[in-house]
């Protein structure tokens, strides 16, 4: 379905009380995220871009406004229990600092979302192994995070984000800790997989370079949308082998 809206924000506000003052992190944001597109939330730190991401992922509740998933589910109204299920089924996360479980192997880290979904061991190991192959770490499935480089750890975290075939994947400064060469690899990987599965990608960054991989760049400043740029015309070609 073309232009299917995955997430819609209607006049979303987020205000943090700070002592006597009230800090307005988001001030009336209305946005639509379309299925299969890659978005970039661009802004300096403190602009409210991370808050926006947290609201969409259901990690925080908005002070005002609505966040509607697939036209009918109101994320801001969901209970903890429903939010857990929502994240299990529809959401993937890639963090700046990878955030892998130190006691688990690469394979186990990848299966974690499936473990929470109560997927039987055989099925989930198979899926996770496919994911590890896709990110090029099939031969390192037995390794613990401490035995891997930063790039490799981020690959595992990408595998983990995509293993449950989510509708939306959030990437919070996914390349913040990586060098330029690895950054390019990671972006190719993330965007490649997302394209292949027609998944929506929401990228949070202050790095203009990353905007080149996106369809739309949403500039955020002081909790407001400064402008929305359609950059799909200048998009770089994504280099992705795609074994999936």
């Amino acid at each position, binding site marked *: 379905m073309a232009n299917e809206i995955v997430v819609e924000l209607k006049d979303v506000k987020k205000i943090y009380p700070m002592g006597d003052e009230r800090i307005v992190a988001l001030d009336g944001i209305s946005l639509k995220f379309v299925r299969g597109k890659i978005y970039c939330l661009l802004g300096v730190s403190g602009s409210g871009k991370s808050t926006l991401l947290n609201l969409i992922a259901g990690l925080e509740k908005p002070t005002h406004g609505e966040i509607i998933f697939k036209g009918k589910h109101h994320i801001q109204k969901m209970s903890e229990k429903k939010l*857990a299920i929502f994240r299990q089924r529809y*959401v993937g996360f890639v*963090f700046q600092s990878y*955030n892998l*479980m130190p006691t688990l192997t690469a394979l186990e880290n990848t299966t974690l*979302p499936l473990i929470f*979904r109560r997927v039987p061991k055989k099925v989930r190991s198979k899926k996770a192994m496919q994911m590890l192959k896709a990110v090029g770490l099939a031969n390192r499935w037995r390794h613990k995070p401490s035995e891997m480089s930063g790039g490799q750890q981020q690959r595992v975290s990408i595998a983990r984000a995509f293993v449950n075939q989510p509708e939306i994947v959030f990437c919070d400064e996914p390349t913040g800790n990586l060098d330029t060469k690895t950054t390019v690899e990671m972006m190719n990987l993330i965007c490649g997989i997302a394209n292949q599965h027609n998944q929506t990608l929401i990228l949070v960054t202050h790095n203009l370079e990353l905007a080149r991989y996106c369809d739309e760049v949403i500039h955020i400043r002081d909790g407001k949308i400064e402008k929305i740029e359609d950059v799909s015309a200048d998009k770089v070609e994504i280099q992705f082998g795609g074994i999936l």
Partner: protein
Amino acid sequence: MRFLDILTMALRNMFKRKLRTVLTVSGVAIGSVAITLMISLGVAVNLQHEQQIEMLGHRANRITIWGPWSPGIGDAVLDEAMLERISAMPNVVAATPQVWMQLTFVNGPYVADLQINGIVPEAMPYMGLNVAEGRVLTADDNLQIVFGSNVLTQFRNPRDRWIWDWDQVANIDPLAIPMRASFDFNFGQPSIGGGGQNQNSPAPYIIEGVGILDGVEWESQMNAFMPLSAVLEIQRDQQRFWQSLGGWWGRDVDADGFENLTVVASSAEHVTQIADDIRNLGFNDVWYDMQWINQQRESTQSLQTLLSAIGAVSLIVAAIGIANTMIMAIYERTKEIGVMKVIGASVKDVRRLFLVEAALIGAFGGLLGVGLSAVASYVLNTVGLPFLDMLVWGATGDVSVIPMWLYALGFGFSCGVGLFSGFLPARRATKISALEAIRTS
């Protein structure tokens, strides 16, 4: 999350911090051993008491009352009315005076001085007096007698010098024919100087042997039993006889009441209550074997409570240890918890992860505790008899007895303590905000 996954993850987290896990588990094990051992001492003491009660046999159910020597001393009088009143008390199955007198029996050439015990016939079975041969006394009996098991060794031929040999047994069947018996001491003896019996000797009684006791109790070995009414009648004859000879200084049952009363309770538990009730009737001289055991039990019980409290304290310390470990684990894993929540762990999953880990510590501690308890119990039993002797006079056997249920209790308690001490930390873990957790580094 599936339970197996939770279990694997909890085990892995425990394994990651080996030393801390081992220390916490040891704490639980020590607590479990302490409480198990303390209870095992109590079990052993109770076993000793049970053995003592068993050794008492039917005597455990018995209460003996001594009446006043003469009326007006202060105690109530043990007369027929009192006998009936006490018999009718709840949980009393039998009550009988025991009236003692000596009768000389003659059977062919043999003579025996038998100690006769006059009792209420219906009380016999309740006093553990069972026959090996014949029957016990019944309400219809009068000049009937049930012999003790050693009756034959008591008969001797007064003309035979060598019959004193203990192995010699009179060749008679005491149940075959009724015997003559008399309270006259010279009855049946060869006359000195050929004069025969006393000129004014009373006529002997003809008494029919109806049973021989099994001799399990010392009471049923040397004593012979006759109906109370018959013995009282014979005593009256005896009184008249002695009065005719010029003197009587014995007890007058009709005036003074019975000397004693034996009361049998339906079970040993009721003995104390019945004894108290009897004291309330105005008797001070009330005795029962259970009172010694009860006294001992009371004194050991307070010691047992103290010991169990010591055990409980060590288990509480262990519980605090677990809680502490788990809270440390939460601080350490705050970020992990946050990440898990973000990628789909439910509140329930997080809570169960920590609860299971705490319960596992308890379970491992419990298992270790079971093993250590067995060893410690063995050591105590090898070297600790003097200690038991302190608690139970004349104790023999084991100082510490751990039945299966106690092992199960120790293990169960440890698991419970683990689970219980996990609650607070687990609740805390679920309260962690995913966002803040991820931001902490």
